[in-house]
């Protein structure tokens, strides 16, 4: 990871779905070495916010800046530093975990040591099964392995702890802190504790959810 310090900013975002306004006037920033945890009741717009910041959805109003440059002006540069894992796992069910990871790594032009990562995530024994056959937690682990091995500075994770067992959650927390200590940026949406050291963490509590 290079040592330049990165920063993501967003200003006056308004998030709409259909004819409902989920959130308004969201402004914030995330700097190197910091984590932002988005919390809030179900349906308040966490996923929508994360997807919007990644450029998968268009905000109704407002702008998003990576290194001070509007994201949609410079997708290639932004995406070169971004790794995202959403509610869906982004794995091809017909390929094994190893193959899925190798594909993701080469696409990023990296050659990480897969084995260490697979071992840490306790996926070694099932790394050669088609991911379709994995258990829910194993699928989630494989999706996380893609992000952890991406070498990206900014990790955006939507409920990363879903389906993980206690040991997995703890291990993941350690990796988060390690990533932050190297100057990475982390943004997660979660209903559980984020496992990040408190002094590195900012919590964004989104209001809303329905009656």
């Amino acid at each position, binding site marked *: 990871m290079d040592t330049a310090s990165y920063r993501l900013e967003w200003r006056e975002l308004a998030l709409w779905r259909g004819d409902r306004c989920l959130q308004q006037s969201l402004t914030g920033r995330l700097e190197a070495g910091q984590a932002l945890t988005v919390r809030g009741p179900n349906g308040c717009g966490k996923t929508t916010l994360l997807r919007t910041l990644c*450029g998968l959805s268009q905000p109704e109003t407002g702008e998003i800046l990576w290194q001070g440059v509007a994201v949609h002006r410079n997708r*290639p*540069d932004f*995406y070169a530093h971004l790794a995202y894992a*959403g509610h*869906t*796992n*982004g794995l091809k069910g017909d390929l094994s975990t190893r193959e899925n990871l190798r594909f993701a790594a080469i*696409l990023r032009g990296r050659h990480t040591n897969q084995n260490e990562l697979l071992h840490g995530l306790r996926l070694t024994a099932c790394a050669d099964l088609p991911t379709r056959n994995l258990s829910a937690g194993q699928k989630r682990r494989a999706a996380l392995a893609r992000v952890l091995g991406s070498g990206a500075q900014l990790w955006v994770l939507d409920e990363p702890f879903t389906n993980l067992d206690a040991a997995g959650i703890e291990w993941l927390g350690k990796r988060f802190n390690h990533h932050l200590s190297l100057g990475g940026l982390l943004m997660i949406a979660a209903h559980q504790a984020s496992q990040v050291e408190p002094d590195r963490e900012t919590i964004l509590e989104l209001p809303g959810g329905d009656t």
Partner: protein
Amino acid sequence: MISAFLLVLRRELTVAVRRWSDLVMPLMFFIIVCTLFPLAVGQDIEMLNNIGPGAIWVAALLATLLSLNSLFRDDFEDGTLEQLALDKEPLSFMLLAKTIAHWLVTELPLVVLSPVLVLAFGMPVDAIPGLVLTLLAGTPALSLIGSVGAALTAGLRQASGLLALLLLPLTVPVLIFGARAADLAASGQSIAGPLYLLGGISVLALTLAPFATAAAVRVSLD
């Protein structure tokens, strides 16, 4: 950019080869569709001869449609499409790779096999080169135009369904020219005219379709 392109291509091919039966299947499908015609229409050789080129083209279009159905839907549902959209390489390029893989896996085997089917329709052996050429020139257009429709329907908004409906008729010209050219070939006439036209459509589709597909994918993901 090229390497990303090749990589996507390779992954798609790996997914296809994963179960070798998947690769053989479009072929089987094509053969089966072609055998249906003689069964339904009867054994009159002259008649079979006549419908042969058309039937082979219909079979090719159907095989394409069937496989396009899931070209992006799977990727959409398992989230890999999202991942491609978040990559630093241009999306249109990677989607083009996917489409080319689709062509290699679904269409190319059909083209290769079509000579055998010429026999099933009792067509003269001289008809083979012409038929193969028209298929080679025309099927890329089917895959490319199809990919736009597949991208639009992946997320299935109502409006995109409508667009897909509009796209389907776009493949009709390909089908018509293709069948016409194959027919000319079977009766030993020159096929240069329709062949250039088919090639032209394919080239046009190659330059425009990837951008439309990429735009459609981004719309589907939003």
